[in-house]
């Protein structure tokens, strides 16, 4: 019993030291411990207690473990890396009531750039709203964002969403990946209700018939017909496949394959590789080109996609590319020459969009967020979505009733000022919960982004 107590206490001490006062000297901590629990507790200290010598009551650190606090601190740092920043404190300032908007996305690890892009969009909209001054139900409000890192993990996203709702009173939570969205859909209509701002183009999100989902971007299945039709007409009817091997990539591959065959083309073997872990793309590219395709289907994160295209051109491929919507042509341009991208169909770059607010938005992004990067479409879509949410709150006269906010999304669309419309702004909100509207994609021809209409079938 004594031994047990000793162990427990020393673990507590250790944690305490690590998380609260890890800079303090361990040796100075111990007398406190001693006073509280009496010297008897030390007799059979085991487990972490072993880190301390026990000679004649002298508490001396053994050298072999002198570094363990450092190592654990490294763990701690890693675990918190890019972590729960931006927590909104409830203190209401001049702007009246504080409305917390939740966000859970990848803010560390391989997908963190994507997560940051999405967050930037929401942040820019919140900055607009706070500057302009929003009144809801007669009360001035200030928007704040509470963001949590989910490292792209579905269960983590759901846990985060729950935390955001319970601790930060968020009525709306944005999640930018389909796995996290599905996980959140299983909890958002129950005890802790919240409106889910779902940023993923996977149409399966809508099939869940979740009453509190707002799917933000255009659904990707609608891209198939124009993408396939354009490239097949232009280059020929055999299609090679080198997509990324994520779950999302797999779904795209299945749909592209089906559509290509429907339109009478031939689909060659799948040479997909995981873009996140591949060291050299030459192998899969050689393999795909050995079957002499007219068009290649590629895509994953923009930058590796650019390398795949560059490799294909380097090995003498002259056909066209169907680029998955995850990759952004404008980002790819920074990693391979413009010439290489000619003949690609993909999503319309935000910077080429003709919406009323695009130009100012791009300028502001450069000024406020980053001079080196350009705003990609995920920044824009989430920016617009946040404006829609704010308008819906105004119309619902509520900041905390997800149901009421959801019901007012459709009318809110007409109320959003033109200056906040930056890319494919939706004109309707479907039964299933999709912000739908006309969508324009692009076909890159002689260095020009020509518009490609994407018919919307719901």
């Amino acid at each position, binding site marked *: 019993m004594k031994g047990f107590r000793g162990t427990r206490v020393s673990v507590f001490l250790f944690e305490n030291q690590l998380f609260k006062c890890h800079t303090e000297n361990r040796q100075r901590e111990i007398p406190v411990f001693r006073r509280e629990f009496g010297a008897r507790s030390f007799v059979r200290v085991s487990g972490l207690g072993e880190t301390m010598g026990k000679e004649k009551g002298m508490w001396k650190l053994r050298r072999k473990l002198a570094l363990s606090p450092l*190592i654990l601190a490294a763990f701690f740092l890693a675990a918190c890396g890019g972590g729960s920043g931006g927590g909104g404190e409830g203190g209401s300032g001049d702007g009246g009531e504080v409305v917390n908007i939740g966000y859970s996305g990848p803010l560390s690890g391989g997908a963190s750039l994507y997560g940051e892009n999405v967050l930037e969009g929401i942040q820019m909209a919140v900055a607009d709203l706070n500057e302009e001054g929003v009144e809801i139900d007669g009360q001035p409000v200030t928007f704040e964002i509470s963001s949590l890192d989910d490292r792209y993990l579905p269960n983590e996203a759901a846990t985060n969403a729950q935390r955001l709702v319970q601790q930060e009173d968020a009525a709306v939570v944005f999640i930018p990946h389909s796995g996290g969205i599905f996980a959140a859909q299983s909890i958002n209509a129950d005890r802790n209700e919240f409106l889910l701002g779902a940023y993923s183009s996977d149409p399966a999100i809508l099939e869940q018939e979740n009453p509190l989902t707002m799917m933000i971007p255009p659904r990707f299945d609608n891209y198939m017909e124009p993408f396939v039709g354009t490239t097949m007409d232009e280059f020929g009817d055999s299609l090679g496949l080198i997509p990324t091997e994520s779950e999302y990539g797999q779904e795209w591959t299945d749909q592209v394959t089906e559509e290509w065959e429907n339109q009478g083309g031939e689909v060659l073997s799948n040479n997909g590789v995981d873009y996140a872990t591949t060291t050299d793309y030459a192998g899969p590219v050689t393999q795909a080109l050995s079957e002499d395709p007219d068009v290649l289907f590629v895509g994953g994160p923009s930058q590796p996609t650019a390398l795949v295209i560059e490799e294909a051109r380097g090995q003498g491929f002259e056909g066209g590319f169907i680029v998955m919507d995850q990759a952004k042509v404008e980002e790819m341009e920074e990693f391979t020459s413009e010439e290489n991208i000619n003949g690609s169909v993909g999503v319309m770059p935000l910077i080429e969009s003709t919406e009323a607010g695009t130009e100012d938005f791009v300028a502001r992004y450069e000024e406020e967020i980053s001079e080196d990067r350009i705003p990609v479409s995920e920044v824009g879509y989430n920016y617009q979505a946040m404006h829609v949410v704010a308008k819906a709150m105004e119309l619902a006269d509520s900041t905390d009733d997800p149901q009421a906010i959801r019901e007012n999304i459709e009318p809110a669309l007409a109320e959003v000022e033109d200056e906040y419309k930056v890319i494919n702004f939706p004109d309707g909100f479907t039964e299933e919960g999709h912000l739908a509207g006309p969508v324009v994609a692009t076909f890159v021809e002689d260095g020009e982004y020509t518009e490609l209409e994407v018919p919307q079938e719901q």
Partner: protein
Amino acid sequence: MELFLQQLINGIALGSVYSLAALGLTLVFGVLRIPNLAHGALYMIGAYVTYFALTSYGIPYIVAIGISAAVLALIGVIVERLVFHPLRNAPHTHHLIAAVGVLFFLQSGAQVLWGSEFREMPSPFTGVINIFGLNIGQQRLVVIFASILVMAALYWFLKKTVPGQTIEAIEQDRTGASLVGIDANRVSMMTFAISAALAAVAASLVAPINLVFPTMGEALNLKVFAIIILGGLGSIPGAIVGGFALALAEVFSSTYVSNAFSEAIGFLFLLVVLAVRPTGLFSKGA
């Protein structure tokens, strides 16, 4: 046939990088018996150092690789002194935990310092050479030749110089080496320095055909471990042969068997080798 040759060259280029990275890992294991899980992170830091030497200071590519190797050698020594040296008498689990700690620390550090965006490393060797109908990127040839050069230099160092021979001596018999007056401390530091420098060279060579980002070492980390287990822990020829074997197995299995299979093939190969020869292909004694 053309396909075969093209893939052979792709496989050799990939294998050179795997081997270089695996060599560093196997050296450390041989001398210190530490599975240095932070090796992939050192590899990543090496790529960043070369990247900044190239882009921020305009240093020529080859010189930048040399600087990166030197900086990483220093980091290797620091890691050995601060983390692994104090643990030298601790149980093995402590090394493992410490190495994972270093891995996370370096990865998060890179993300905080340099952001998580992908960066493209400019290289002067951007062209494509056409030989007998094969299209070979110049950078791939650089990778192959530079790797061979570095491996030859390492071999010469280990076999023909006194400091190199002390490494081998410690590897073969720690007590015996100490008895004849070899300073194990110095050898540990030297081994870590060489290991980190090799990782830096491998990363700097491959970065122009891939990208530089904080998690770039993760996938490689797993593969180099498979390679040194395959080749025999601590064995230098094992690391070289293992690296090429894994790369060629990956490339050719995707060419002639199935693409979905290629990532798995390396590990399947590993299972077979371990079943037949549990100590790895080139293990000494045991």
